[in-house]
């Protein structure tokens, strides 16, 4: 039986450079991801998300770099500037 497709949801910070790149990667790749900028939430919504004691927002450097490299090469391919 094929498992049901589930939407990816990521919790991010609007101020974070790593989060910005991660968002751009998924957008450029055409992957539908639901982002929630936790720093823009207030009150109960924010408290609910922060119940995870391991919650940090910084993705691994290697992940960010891989995403960014993919994003740049995808952009280059689209613009025809790839060597």
């Amino acid at each position, binding site marked *: 039986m094929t498992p049901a497709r589930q939407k990816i949801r990521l919790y991010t*910070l609007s*101020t*974070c*450079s790593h989060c910005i790149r991660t968002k751009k990667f998924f957008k450029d790749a055409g992957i539908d991801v639901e982002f929630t900028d936790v720093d823009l939430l207030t009150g109960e919504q924010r408290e609910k998300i922060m119940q*995870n004691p391991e919650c*940090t*927002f*910084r993705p*691994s*450097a290697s992940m960010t770099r891989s995403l960014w490299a993919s994003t740049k090469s995808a952009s280059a391919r689209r613009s025809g500037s790839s060597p």
Partner: protein
Amino acid sequence: MTAEELHPILSRYAESQGIRLNKDRDFVLDILRGLLTNEQRYGYRSCPCRLAWGVKEQDADVICPCVYRDPDIREYGSCYCELYVSVEWNEGKIEHRQVPERRPREKRKML
């Protein structure tokens, strides 16, 4: 102040400390925009890669440059955000590893 205006100021500051800003300028400008947003939002330049409490005393350890920067650069070559880095890190002479969160759990914004 804009991120573009802040960049040369922090670059000179970093050099005075024997370290550097990450040479990826676009990446750094996004970090600086986050810093300036936090300054407007909270009144101080809280780390843009961490969720602030919004109370200066509780965020004192993560006001940029955070108190974890120097030990992180010593151990990993970069701070948590990869804003401040060592010369060797910038030159690619050391591996770029993920910098784990050094801030103690009890100081993080959570219940």
